[in-house]
């Protein structure tokens, strides 16, 4: 049980930590002050959620949550690849923020029923806070969709670019079968993926945007071609993928990451590696 629990907590915590780090890169650079504050605050929330997941994991494997967050080699992180991509432009940032928070809501909803009481109550608490993130993302997407055509076009392009990699959030975790059997993860990743596709298709449709879910079957090859080629070789075989999900989005859950992650990891862990165990 503990191996499956740690696998689940690591995937959850690493997604929040790594995307939280990307969000924090907007501090001082966002297009206007309120967004500078908003992304800094969302980053603080996400990194705080990672700390909470890592605290539970540290209770199982020992060590401190900081050690878990910053003391691992790149290949030991289990975040989905979409979380490690650079912020790009404002459209990409918002498209990823929007899709990630839909995905996070789908899995938190399931985890509220986890057989692990501490994880279940944590998921419940985190979901209440994440509603603010969803509102923030929804607000921006609606505003841009109803605005001038230039912004609308950029947003559609960004959603198309990020959508397929977002599916990697639902790549089965290591020890998935045990996690599901024990009720730690009450809903299998494949089912969570189906819920995510359904809900985002509905959301896109309501916004009058093309439903990316329909693109998956006939344009998979194109997405693979545009987003592959920079994977760092992992030393483990990838776990079984849900059908219809392109492989370029996958691998994060078994420690395969892109060069983008190596660059992020260098920055994110620099202080910890320079002064392990320092406190201030």
């Amino acid at each position, binding site marked *: 049980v503990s191996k499956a629990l740690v696998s689940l907590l690591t995937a959850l915590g690493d997604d929040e930590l790594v995307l939280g780090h990307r969000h924090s890169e907007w501090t001082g650079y966002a297009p206007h002050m*309120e967004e500078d*504050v*908003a992304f*800094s*605050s*969302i980053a*603080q*929330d*996400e*990194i*705080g*959620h990672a*700390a*909470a997941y890592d605290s539970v994991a540290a209770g199982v494997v020992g060590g401190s949550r900081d050690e878990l967050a910053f003391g691992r080699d790149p290949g030991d992180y289990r975040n989905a690849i979409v979380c490690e991509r650079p912020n790009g432009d404002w459209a990409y940032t918002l498209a990823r923020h929007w899709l990630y928070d839909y995905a996070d809501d789908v899995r938190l909803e399931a985890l509220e029923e986890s057989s692990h*009481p*501490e994880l279940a*109550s*944590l998921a*419940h*608490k*985190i979901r*209440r*806070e994440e*509603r*603010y993130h969803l*509102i*923030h993302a*929804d*607000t921006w997407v*609606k*505003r841009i969709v109803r605005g001038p055509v230039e912004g609308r076009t950029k947003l559609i392009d960004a959603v198309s670019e990020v959508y397929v990699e977002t599916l990697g959030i639902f790549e089965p975790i290591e020890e998935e079968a045990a996690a599901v059997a024990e009720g730690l993860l009450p809903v299998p990743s494949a089912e969570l993926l189906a819920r995510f596709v359904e809900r985002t298709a509905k959301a896109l449709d309501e916004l009058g945007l093309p439903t990316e879910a329909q693109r998956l079957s006939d344009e998979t090859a194109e997405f693979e071609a545009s987003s592959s080629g920079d994977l760092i070789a992992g030393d483990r075989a990838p776990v079984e993928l849900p059908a219809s999900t392109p492989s370029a989005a996958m691998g994060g859950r078994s420690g395969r990451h892109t060069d983008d992650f190596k660059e992020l990891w260098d920055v994110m862990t620099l202080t910890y590696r320079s002064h392990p165990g320092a406190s201030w």
Partner: protein
Amino acid sequence: MSVSVGTVEERVWDALADVLDPEIPAVSVVDMGMIREVSVEDGVASVVVLPTFTGCPAVPMIERDVAAAVRSVEGVSDVRVRTSFDPPWTDDRITEDGRRKLKEFGLAPPTGKGPVLITEIGLPAVARCPFCGSANTRAENPFGPTPCRALYYCQACRNPFEQFKPV
């Protein structure tokens, strides 16, 4: 010389009533409803703290201050403080006293239950201005200087203010 009154548990609660929230030093952890339970067995006090927000950076300070305050209580030889998210801290845990103190501090108490969509732009429900009491306020940003604060502007007295976020 102080005279000990009540049970050890009651004295622990009294001590906790003096432990202030490090980020909002006008209210105590008891006013904020952050203390889930207190128990004392053979002189060992156990205190369960419910953080207001998961990522609140003040939690380690609160744990430290709670432990120090409880350790000084007569009849307590050791203290165990732990945090929990069960039940999740919700803003309805703030006491009436706590709401009054927040307002006096210049921080609007939370309204309603969690973020409520009032318009298509989707900001949290309107807060009442802590300075003039007007409800003619405008939500500026659901994210503020700490995870627990949102930014507002009072259109009546023309003051910016912050609200403790409903969660």
